[in-house]
């Protein structure tokens, strides 16, 4: 018996063909939430600083609420590093390590939610993403865990065992699929340097760089996950992102207003 077809251009077609002519973009891809700004709140860089790092940033986010729609995604930080260390010592595969990391970014999202409740912060699980539009319309600030949902379906890493798709990747991809107005990574460095500025004082600041140039430079260390660079090359909507030092008052506001205040990485 032949498969029961329902007459579409794809019926009977294999989706694994090398010739992708059938699947070429048909018309414009819509932007699901074109006015929203997706902001990543760094784990080690912001959350782990506690009150001194987080309180002023929350104030700044709240001050921007009337002008900008925002979705916040949280990173993991030091507890992620600890659980990765323990899990790797125990011989856990990358997929399990990704699952464990997700729970820390989940914790951080809940922390941020409790702090921001009084300002309309809502903790949104991935299963309830259909409510994002409602929350934004009601003037709320949705808060999500930054990790992508791959967990045990995470690809094995190309080197070592730390999952390659972590919270930078999750927050960036969310911005891209929503067709967001901007994606901003709030961290504790002014942006991208030629090396880790916390360890190498001679590291030079890079204000703006293309994805291909950055991949080509093959820096030993980066302020943003390499996976994000890879994915940006195929981006339809979010073709640039900005990494900012959110510890400097006013920087997030200026970034939301479209100013160049950190490092801009753009797809060429």
């Amino acid at each position, binding site marked *: 018996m032949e498969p029961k077809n329902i007459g579409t251009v794809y019926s009977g077609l294999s989706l694994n063909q090398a010739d992708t002519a059938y699947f070429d973009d048909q018309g414009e891809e819509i932007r699901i939430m074109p006015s929203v700004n997706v902001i990543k709140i760094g784990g080690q860089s912001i959350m782990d600083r506690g009150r001194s790092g987080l309180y002023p940033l929350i104030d700044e986010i709240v001050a921007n609420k009337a002008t900008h729609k925002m979705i916040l995604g949280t990173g993991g930080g*030091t507890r992620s590093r600890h659980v990765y260390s323990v899990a790797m010592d125990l011989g856990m595969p990358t997929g399990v390590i990704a699952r464990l990391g997700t729970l820390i970014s989940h914790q951080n999202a809940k922390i941020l939610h409790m702090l921001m409740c009084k300002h309309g912060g809502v903790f949104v699980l991935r299963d309830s993403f259909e409510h994002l539009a409602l929350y934004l319309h009601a003037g709320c600030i949705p808060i999500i865990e930054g990790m992508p949902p791959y967990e045990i379906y995470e690809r094995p890493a190309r080197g070592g065992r730390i999952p390659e798709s972590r919270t930078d990747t999750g927050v960036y991809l969310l911005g891209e699929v929503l067709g967001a107005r901007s994606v901003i990574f709030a961290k504790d460095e002014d942006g991208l340097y030629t090396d880790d500025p916390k360890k190498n004082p001679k590291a030079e600041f890079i204000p703006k760089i293309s994805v291909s140039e950055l991949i080509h430079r093959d820096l030993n260390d980066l302020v943003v996950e390499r996976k994000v660079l890879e994915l940006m090359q195929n981006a339809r909507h979010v073709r640039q992102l900005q990494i900012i030092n959110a510890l400097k008052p006013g920087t997030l506001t200026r970034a939301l207003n479209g100013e160049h205040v950190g490092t801009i990485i753009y797809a060429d």
Partner: protein
Amino acid sequence: MPTEPKLPGAESATPASPEAGVKIVIEQGRPRVHVESPLMMESLLDKQLIDRTYKEHEVPILPDVHLVHLGGQGTIDRGAEVLLPLVDEIVRNRLEHKILIGVGGGIRERHTFALATDLGLPTGGLAQLTGVICKQNATMVYYLLARHGGVRIARENFHKLPYYLNAGGIPVIVDMPPYHFWEHMPRVGRIPKHRPDTGSYLISEVYSCRSSIFVKDVDGVLTEDPKINPRAKLIPRVSASELLSMNLPDLPIERAVLEILQLARNRKEIRIINGLVPGNLTRALNGEDVGTVIYQ
């Protein structure tokens, strides 16, 4: 008393020193609080650090389980004629083998892609939608297997798999991986890269399954499209990189599986078999030569 097999690496572990314990560390000059660990204050993107995390052996999680993927279009969409004999074959083998069944999408998945693409939805939107087709198929397979111990397991309950398997059950899972909105954008078009074959393979890799068997409606990987050239030959064994470099116009397996296979640590080969031929699945479960084996 028989000694328990040790986990890989356990013999080389150094005994914990009494001082070793968890410490909370407050960074000098910066108001950051850390938990002491080898990754403390490290950038996880540092290449040397990443290399240091490599380990030869990972914990085998479900090493005696065969992961059998039932293709959507190749088996389920063909209805009773193909699916019922396959179900019988699974049931006949369950006493000898622990079998975990994963189910694909098929033609309704393709229809969803066609409709959603036409409407302008992004790749992540397509990926968000198609899991339910696998769910429908998994539901049907579950009902066929229920009287033989079939049990439908949602992803949140994967940690109970050993229990169901030890109780003689045949767990049925959805193979569409949960990439959802976070699916990677392809270079061309909008078809999600990570589809049911990839989901099934990733589970066999992370759980170190005994085998990863893909039940399709072709004999395996052929040198040409058999519909165009009936004399196309079956390739019995091929490496993932070789297969990708052959640049075949079509493949019976998702390309993402071949990419990931090259990075695998645990499940380093997969097998594609023709589920329309009775006995093929049994032979594959017994490790006999049938179909195409793709290896790392």
